[in-house]
């Protein structure tokens, strides 16, 4: 039904979700190995891009993958796709790391997450959402994709991004708005 990116040997979203399920229920190390070989190098690159030095990026990528093992039973395909779930783990561990650097007291706290109660139809909606987001990203212009990426990979507010790109703030804002608008049209198209 919903086809997520399917290349040679690259697991699609359903396959990744199934692998996480096997880690959760059977502590299946082969499934874990596949998840690791797919996600760890991507996490490593993703974390570097978001400004971490290479050693740190690799350490946190490793931590994320250990969290995947520990928390596999909390993965809920009704709330997020596999890559999205792993992205949020990486995001939270990166925030924790940066805060530990800033504050002497090493807090064990994770950022506040909002609990939502998944309903019967959210599973389908989640798969749809993930697929539609990917579709939408493909249709963005280079300029729109650039500001969207900058929003993800830098802690700068859009006003600062605008200064750096030498663009008026309004231009940056409108590119983000267009990019997100396209996402929204696709996301809402099914309701």
């Amino acid at each position, binding site marked *: 039904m919903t086809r997520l*990116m399917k290349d040679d040997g690259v697991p699609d979203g359903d396959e990744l979700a199934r692998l996480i399920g096997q880690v959760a229920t059977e502590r299946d*190390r082969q499934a874990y190995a596949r998840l*690791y*070989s797919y*996600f*760890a*190098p*991507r*996490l490593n*690159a993703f974390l570097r891009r978001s400004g971490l030095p290479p050693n740190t990026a*690799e350490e946190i*990528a*490793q931590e994320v*993958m*250990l969290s995947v093992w*520990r*928390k596999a*039973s*909390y993965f809920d395909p009704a*709330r*997020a*796709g596999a*890559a*999205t*779930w792993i*992205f949020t783990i990486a*995001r939270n561990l*990166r*925030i*924790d790391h940066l*805060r530990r650097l*800033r*504050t002497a007291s090493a807090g*064990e*706290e*994770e*950022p*506040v*997450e*909002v609990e*939502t109660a998944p309903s019967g139809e959210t599973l389908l909606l989640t798969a749809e*959402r*993930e697929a539609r*987001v*990917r579709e939408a*990203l493909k249709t963005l212009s280079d300029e729109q994709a650039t500001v*969207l*990426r900058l*929003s*993800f*990979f830098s*802690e*700068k*507010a*859009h*006003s600062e991004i605008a200064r750096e790109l030498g663009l008026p703030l309004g231009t940056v804002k409108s590119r*983000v708005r267009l990019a*997100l608008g396209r*996402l929204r049209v696709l*996301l809402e198209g099914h309701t």
Partner: protein
Amino acid sequence: MTIRHHASDESLLRYAAGQLPAGPARVLAVHLATCPCCRERLAAFEAVGGALLEATAPAPMAPDAFAAALRAIDREEAARAPATPAPTHLEARARPRAPVTLPGGIPLPAPLQDCEIGPWRWIGLGVRASTVRLPEDPEARLTLLRVGPGRKLPEHGHVGTEFTQVISGSFSDGFGRYGPGDLSEMDQEIEHQPIVDREGDCYCLAALEGSMRLNGFFGRLVQPFVRL
């Protein structure tokens, strides 16, 4: 509660990306806790993160990284046997203490329950303020404001974006009326003067990205105390 003022795309995107500073991020967390509509938008932006992660060209890990991961797992499993399920982060965070309430018995929003709420200080003209300390970032500037009916918040402009989430009561400014659950995001360089509606006290949670300049004599008087 009908929510009329929502988080901006920019803020939700930065929250999803983990790029919003701790103070504004908590204000958004309080809004998200009451707003299913923004939660849905957040889920979409997090899916953007998932898609970007998958689209990232891989950077190889050290050759022995996977073996090291398995060793770490073996150590943990050995230490933990017989297996007890790890508490979820939500359980782990739950503190065995009575829920904190604000004066007047107004419950403190759940996403603030792990914060240290400072004493209320009178800062003039019907305005009281209390500093909220975040366990994960003691430097973050987050303030609870309690403003009396019909009172003005100090007139101010700011250099970054100001995030104000209404917890109870309501205020109005040139941009509309803000009631419980509403989030006001004021861009930089906008001067606005919120006035609390006549019905009663207004409690709100405010954080600022960047710094604020308060105008006039009153502003200069208040600035050292507000720490907005």
